[in-house]
């Protein structure tokens, strides 16, 4: 492992990669601060640029954007009570009241230090857990992978659906259907191309991400007459107050951070759960663990109440890398986008990644830590100024998002069919968003579609076409039973909700 850490440090500490982390953190912070535009959009816009670099640098850039976006989301939660990303909603519970009391600078500092500590601790957990899990996952066989992918898709549908599980499952199926367009990987037979040569290679992953996130979010903002930059104009540079944290406050944070980082990391590892659930759970847990007088302060500007979700959401970000790096199965929509980008580089994440491409595996882990340091020393003093940049009017912001989306697709294919296809998919996605059909399950399914078919093919061929492989191994059975429980539970909830009403 020491050797791996050194490989990672050597790769991550090159001038180019440090510069990429800085760019990623900065860009991610700006996008993350804009309500409605989350890390997936930020990463999607970055993908075409990453293809100009080697895979390690590309992934480092995307990881920087991811952390920056989560950090940016916290800032808008604290200053504006307008969470930029869902994972920072819990931050606003105590961060915004603190800012209203004239302690915005302090709230930002507590959030930044908690994020830093949460990210650092979880990078250490990842450092130890990822190689061990990689070794364990080497014993996984095709049926287990197939079952695990079904579990991952079901879990993300369950967690991201806000009670609309069936809608999320429909999005999963739609994502898998889109992934099936083009040549079959084994026989080269074309499917669902309708004799259109442009579809022979299938639909590009970047196109689907750009269309369903960047472009459709831009269209939704116009359609709903939202102005994500309006709130940022209220930020006053002079009213932030001191960023110093006193001894008593530090003492509270010392207790909160370790326990919140553990819960955040573990939740992040679970497929589909992610930063939002981690931050809410950490907030709830902290409220139960503190003394009664501190409990009274929750919701009114509690240090523990701010520190807990901030630590947990950053820890969950690192945790969500575990299933992607070790199993090749992303645990969240954001890591699904990263997985898709890695596949575009010709790299297959999975248990063998840290043996075949140790520089990628370790440099990503190392860059997480570097990203945290950069966020702390670069972003904290610059936050008020970054918030000012956000005062760019919507009339400029939206065309620029559309410009980056369309250019991103054009430079990859030099083909106007892809532009039309992207507009078409973005229109459908915008319409579906209006009716609360979630997009992350579609992306995860699109990324996993090919792998899922491949593992089903191997399993069926090995069992001579029999579906016995589903209950031949205990591990497969356990994974499938978990999946079935999730599906049945959500259908039961839908039925009982109606009865209660």
């Amino acid at each position, binding site marked *: 492992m020491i050797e791996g850490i050194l490989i990672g440090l050597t790769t991550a500490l090159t001038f180019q990669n440090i510069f990429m982390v800085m760019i990623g953190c900065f860009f991610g912070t700006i996008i993350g601060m804009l309500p409605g535009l989350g890390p997936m959009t930020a990463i999607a816009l970055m993908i075409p*640029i990453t293809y*100009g670099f080697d895979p390690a640098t590309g992934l480092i850039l995307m990881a920087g954007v991811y952390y920056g976006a989560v950090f940016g989301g916290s800032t808008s939660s604290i200053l504006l009570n307008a969470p930029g990303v869902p994972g920072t909603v819990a931050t606003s519970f105590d961060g915004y009241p603190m800012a209203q009391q004239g302690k915005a600078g302090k709230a930002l500092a507590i959030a930044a230090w908690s994020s830093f500590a949460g990210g650092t601790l979880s990078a250490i957990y990842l450092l130890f857990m990822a190689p061990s899990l990689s070794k364990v996952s080497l014993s996984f066989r095709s049926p287990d992978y197939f079952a695990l992918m079904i579990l991952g898709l079901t879990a993300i549908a369950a967690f991201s659906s806000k*009670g*609309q599980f*069936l*809608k999320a*499952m*429909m999005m999963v*199926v*739609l994502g898998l*259907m889109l992934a*099936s367009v083009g040549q*079959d990987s*084994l*026989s080269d*037979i074309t*499917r*669902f191309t309708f004799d259109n040569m442009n579809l022979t290679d299938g639909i590009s992953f970047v196109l689907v991400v750009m269309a369903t996130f960047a472009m459709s979010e831009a*269209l939704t903002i*116009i*359609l*709903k*007459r939202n102005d994500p930059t309006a709130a940022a104009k209220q930020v006053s540079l002079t009213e932030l107050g001191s960023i110093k944290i006193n001894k008593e406050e530090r003492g509270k944070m010392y207790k909160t951070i370790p326990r919140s980082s553990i819960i955040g990391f573990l939740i992040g590892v679970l497929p589909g759960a992610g930063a939002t659930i981690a931050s809410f759970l950490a907030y709830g847990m902290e409220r139960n663990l503190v003394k009664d007088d501190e409990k009274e302060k929750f919701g009114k500007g509690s240090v523990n109440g701010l520190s807990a979700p901030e630590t947990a959401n950053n820890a969950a970000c690192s945790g969500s890398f575990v299933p992607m790096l070790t199993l090749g199965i992303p645990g969240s929509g954001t890591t699904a986008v990263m997985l898709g980008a890695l596949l575009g580089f010709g790299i297959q994440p999975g248990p063998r990644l840290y043996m075949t491409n140790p520089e990628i595996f370790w440099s990503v882990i190392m860059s997480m830590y570097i990203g945290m340091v950069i966020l702390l020393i670069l972003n904290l003093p610059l936050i008020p100024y970054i918030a000012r940049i956000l005062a760019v*009017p919507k*009339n*400029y912001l*939206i*065309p*620029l998002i*559309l*410009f980056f989306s*369309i*250019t991103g697709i*054009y*430079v990859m294919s*030099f083909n*106007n069919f892809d*532009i*039309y296809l992207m*507009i078409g998919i973005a*229109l459908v996605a*915008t319409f*579906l968003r*209006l*009716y*609360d*059909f979630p997009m992350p399950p579609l992306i995860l399914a699109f990324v996993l579609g090919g792998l*899922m*078919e491949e593992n*089903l*093919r191997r399993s*069926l061929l090995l*069992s001579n*076409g029999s579906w016995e492989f589903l209950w031949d191994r205990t591990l497969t059975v356990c994974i499938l039973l978990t999946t079935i429980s999730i599906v049945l539970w959500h*259908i039961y909830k*839908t*039925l009982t*909700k*109606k009865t209660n*009403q």
Partner: protein
Amino acid sequence: MNINTTKIISLLFFIFSAFYLYTAYQIQVFAFDENAPFNARTFPIYLGYTGLFFSGLKLILPDPDTIKVEHKTLEYKKTGILILIAIIYGATILKVGYFLTTSLFLFASYYFLGERRWILMFLLSFPFVAVFMYLLHGVLDIYLRDPFLKSIGVMG
């Protein structure tokens, strides 16, 4: 059964899944693969049935959280114009080239979204695209075909 837009979307998805399933059965596989445990049409067929299952369930089961969208408050005009500009952009980019179409796309988008600060609009379109193009073409070495710039002798 209470018919709402979500149910209509589910019905459309049901029909789409049925069409997908029909097309999946039409996939031509090699003769020796016809009775194989797994061929090019196996996975799509299962997908088609899964789509029918979930959209069917959504149609049948009650919908406790009905989403109501106030269509009157939605900005259809500007959204439609932006989409139209994007389509025109797609139609002209190969013939005219990246620089001019992209700059005009940005300029037109700013204009139709209500912007009237002409100098800023110009700066954030033509020079902005020129700098971006230099980054792509000159720094990242991504070739951009541009008949317009070629015709005036700027690009080789």
